[in-house]
């Protein structure tokens, strides 16, 4: 069971091996993740998907990568050259860095050195992931701006607004986990999900489930929504709404390694939020219940397998959602983020904090304060509700008055109005009209 004290003692070469392994794992995961996604989504839509390059089309992504590497690297005229080149890098580097704090397993013996299966850990590790996500936003906004195209800049702005809004909700959904785990370090959060503890009601002792996904299910559900929003995935893939914006912020990155980097960043980000959901909510690398009955399940190198299976399942969920759901409208997206997810999150955190405080000490004091807060909030709500109601009635009356004045003289509203009582409203058709199929 690694704790924070196990980190920072690795010899340099072990750290280098771990970093290279994580990098190679992520690159391979992107290559075959793209293939998995295309194949899965094809099957869900009754198609075959890629099946030409290699067995089952397994080499499709490799072929695509080669093609992108060999294509001419276009730079549109008039772009900000430096930022145009740097933006994909800003996008991809933080995504890779985030993976350094994802725990893959317990302390193992690697070439005779005892070391945890995790590149590094910090007392504030989860904060590092959030910070890296917020750095990645620069890649999006700068790629959009530097390529000097209205589609790109609109896509970049949309994407930025979306990622910032959903990052707040995402950060808030972690708070309940921090309250329960009492730490921000990823390895310790995984350790805290080892045993669920028990709930005592009178003489009855109920064993609690150990995963925070079950203990803190509202936080988990909100996190699932925000992780779709944070990575610009369906149903929140507004930034590249191809119906409106061609391809969004990477419209001008036509076909080159820069485009490949942007794609890679997108998928690595998906793996980062998946890895984070596994670490914070789904028990980390620890084996799920039926397997965890076997004593050896959480020792040695086995946890790598559990982590990988969980990663595949979460990624499969991403694909499933993409196949199942349509894209939401932009105002719906923003309304969901700001008016639903964030307030719900705050209320839930308040509840969790209260329950934690009740369990520690000074229960009655906390309870009285909570009651006062709830009553106060209700009073404020009802006051604004009546004020809003009054405003709504006044507005409705205004509209009604408008209708009454305009009914007699439609042109008074300032707009040209066609005659409102034409014959065909009453089923009288002119003979010139040709019905379809009559030829």
């Amino acid at each position: 069971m690694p704790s924070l004290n196990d980190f920072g003692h690795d010899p340099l070469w072990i750290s280098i091996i771990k970093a290279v392994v994580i990098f190679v794992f992520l690159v391979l995961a992107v290559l075959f993740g793209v293939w998995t996604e295309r194949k899965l989504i094809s099957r869900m839509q009754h198609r075959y998907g890629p099946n030409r390059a290699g067995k089952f089309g397994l080499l499709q992504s490799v072929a695509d990568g080669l093609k992108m590497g060999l294509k001419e690297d276009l730079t549109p005229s008039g772009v900000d050259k430096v930022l145009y080149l740097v933006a994909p890098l800003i996008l991809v580097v933080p995504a890779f860095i985030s993976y350094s704090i994802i725990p893959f397993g317990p302390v193992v013996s690697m070439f005779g050195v005892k070391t945890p299966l995790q590149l590094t850990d910090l007392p504030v590790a989860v904060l590092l992931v959030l910070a890296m996500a917020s750095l990645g936003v620069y890649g999006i906004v700068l790629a959009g701006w530097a390529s000097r195209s209205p589609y790109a800049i609109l896509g970049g702005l949309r994407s930025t607004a979306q990622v910032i809004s959903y990052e707040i909700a995402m950060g808030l959904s972690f708070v309940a986990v921090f309250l329960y785990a009492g730490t921000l370090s990823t390895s310790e959060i995984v350790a805290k999900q080892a045993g669920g503890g028990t709930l005592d009601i009178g003489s009855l002792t109920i064993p609690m489930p150990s995963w925070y996904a079950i203990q803190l299910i509202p936080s988990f559900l909100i996190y699932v929504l925000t992780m779709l929003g944070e990575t610009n995935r369906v149903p929140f893939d507004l930034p590249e709404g191809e119906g409106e914006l061609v391809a969004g912020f990477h419209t001008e990155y036509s076909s080159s390694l820069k485009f490949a980097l942007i794609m890679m960043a997108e998928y690595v980000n998906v793996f980062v939020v998946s890895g984070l959901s596994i670490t914070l909510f789904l028990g980390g690398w620890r084996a799920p219940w039926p397997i965890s009955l076997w004593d050896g399940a959480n020792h040695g190198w086995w946890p790598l397998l559990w982590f990988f299976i969980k990663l595949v399942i979460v990624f499969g969920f991403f694909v499933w959602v993409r196949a199942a759901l349509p894209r939401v409208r932009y105002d719906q997206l923003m309304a969901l983020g700001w008016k639903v997810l964030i307030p719900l999150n705050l209320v839930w955190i308040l509840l969790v904090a209260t329950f934690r405080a009740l369990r520690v000490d000074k229960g009655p004091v906390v309870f009285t304060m909570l009651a006062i807060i709830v009553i106060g909030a209700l009073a404020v709500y009802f006051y604004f509700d009546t004020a809003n109601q009054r405003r709504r009635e006044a507005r409705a009356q205004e509209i009604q008055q408008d209708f009454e004045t305009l009914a007699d003289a439609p042109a008074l509203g300032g707009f040209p109005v066609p005659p409102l009582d034409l014959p065909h409203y009453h089923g009288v058709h002119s003979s010139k009209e040709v019905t379809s199929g009559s030829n």
Partner: protein
Amino acid sequence: MNFASPAFWPPTTQEIVFLLLGVIAVGSAVLVVTTRQLVHAALWLVVSFGALAGGYLVLTAEFVAWVQILIYVGAIVVLLLFGIMLTRAPIGRSADLDSGNQIAALVVGVATAGVLVSVLVAGFRHAYMPLTPGAGAAKPLGSSIFRTWVLPFEALSVLLLAALIGAIVLSRTDIRGR
């Protein structure tokens, strides 16, 4: 505080890194106001904030460092960029970026810097803190804010809340005056 002052020479690695970060922070801050490209000014601000965060990291204040990146780099400058791009974000140099108050601003800036530096040197020249790893994690910081400094913290929260509500009221057009 007030431990025996260590020797300045030879400088430790941390001191050198801290000094370099300071140079980057000040240099990019100067570039923010001198660059001719609007968007680049915001990006130099990012570099400056990032160097500050690096400074916090060297001083073992991890939590503050990552929050600095999260809030200042990740939210505030992005909002600035957002505002620039929604209004005016030309690619290339702009001719009319100089303010008429250049000289006054320069004088005020230099004077403020002088006051701050002289106060710090006068007050804390011989003050030294031993840096212990882990002292800047969430727990010590949280307990010092919510135990020792809870009153200023709450006062600040109320101030920010008032500012927030004020901004909403000012920006909404459907609330009429009485």
